[in-house]
């Protein structure tokens, strides 16, 4: 695509993501925070789409936006009252938060400067405009060869199964 259009889309997504993440931590009600978090996650999915990695974008939306945020919202429904307003934090916590944010920025900036970017304006050896085939991803997830991930996949699904059974046990004890 045209570099200018790319830049415009990138700036829009970035500004929206930044503004919404600031809103997510500064909102007064818990449910608003969860909603802004949802929008931040959608912005992240937008970045993946922008990188032509459609699979990860769809995973991001269905797992985080469709699953995790709905769990958050249900938990908020069940635990908080309508009029609840989040307490103001102390100044000390603000300072600690700012320090943590600065540390994160420092780490990212360090990685950014150290990394040699292969793909540039005048280097088209890597084609960024190509869609990754679903077949490749599927075979990598389900294969047993080197660089294929069947074992971790199965271990993770066993962990999730254990979580489900544990949840049912806790719920049945009433």
């Amino acid at each position: 695509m045209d570099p200018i259009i790319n830049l415009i889309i990138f700036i829009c997504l970035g500004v929206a993501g930044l503004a919404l993440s600031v809103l997510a931590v500064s909102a007064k009600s818990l449910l608003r925070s969860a909603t802004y978090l949802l929008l931040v996650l959608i912005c992240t999915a937008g970045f993946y789409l922008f990188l032509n990695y459609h699979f990860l974008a769809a995973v991001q939306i269905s797992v985080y936006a469709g699953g995790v945020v709905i769990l958050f919202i249900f938990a908020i429904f069940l635990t908080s009252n309508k009029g609840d307003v989040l307490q103001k934090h102390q100044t000390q916590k603000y300072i600690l938060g700012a320090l943590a944010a600065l540390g994160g920025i420092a780490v990212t900036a360090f990685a950014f400067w150290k990394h040699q970017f292969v793909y540039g304006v005048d280097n088209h050896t890597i084609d960024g405009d190509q869609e990754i085939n679903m077949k490749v991803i599927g075979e990598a997830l389900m294969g047993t060869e080197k660089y294929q991930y069947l074992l971790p996949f199965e271990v993770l699904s066993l962990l999730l199964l254990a979580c489900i059974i544990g949840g049912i046990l806790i719920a049945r004890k009433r």
Partner: protein
Amino acid sequence: MFHFEVVTQWIDRFLRTYLQGGWALFIEFVLIGVVVLTAYAVLALILIYVERKVCAFFQCRIGPNRVGPFGVFQSVADMIKILLKELIKIDRVDPRLFRLAAYLVIIASICTFGAIPFDKGLHAVDFNIGVFYLLAVSSLGVVGILLAGWASNNKYTMIGAMRSGAQLISYELSCGLALMTIVMLSGSMQLSVIVEQQSYAWNIFRGGIPAIIAFVIYLIAGHAETNRGPFDLPEAESELTAGYHTEYSGIQFGFFYLAEYLNMFIIAAIATTLFLGGWMPLHIPGWDGFNEVMDYIPPVLWFFAKSFICVFLALWVRWTMPRLRIDQLLNLEWKILMPISLLNIILMAIWVIWII
């Protein structure tokens, strides 16, 4: 066969000869957006008219018959009315979430609508992961419904939203599993590829018994996902006034209303694409003359005819069955549909490996 590809490619070439690549793309984006939104609105008008007529016939009435011949312009008049209505300000709601909820519901619906292949070349979003994209984007609507129920500050909306949330999350499972069976059969998730594969036998014929089971499960679960028919207990009017959109007025209510009707169409369209061959005409291997006659009917017509048959099935169920209780609803999903669709996946694996 006449494909819309010809028209869309002509527009693309026309724009590219007169404009630079970037601007041509930009104009195409805007054009696609306008076309998708217009098609969305027009389809909603048609669906509302069809629903009112079909409902009337099921109840031995005539239905809308005053505005235009057979009342065909009734829903246009209703649209103008709903556009002019006042947006009532509700006291003590969370205004930002209240407004956002309506948009979330309709955006999720429009995003899904964009991915439906109406014809070759008449297809806005055609990702490699098509089916997965549909499932992912349509799950966003649940958040909108939950937020609408909470932000309205009303116990009826709250109960409606909780019921709807539980219902949508549960039925999404068997919806996804039914679609997965078809993905196993076709070996691809891209919608255009899935449609192309069905040129000689639609998936429902090619996949045999497991495909038919998956089709029935998808129709039931999809119908439950639209919050209609026997599954309309989130908006049960006798107990909850109107469920999660009780407090909405004017065009904000219109958004929920539009999304409900279009979701019904989207479910029918996905069923058409994955099970009934999308825009492919009915071809029978060996009957060349018959196939040629069928090719004369344009693919768009085939698509809409099949989708509207599915929509008619949904309406038929809606106006015939009594409403379920919440425990019956959840039992149906978790104890009947889910196990059947899991077994069905194994059956489909056997079918794919040994029979075809």
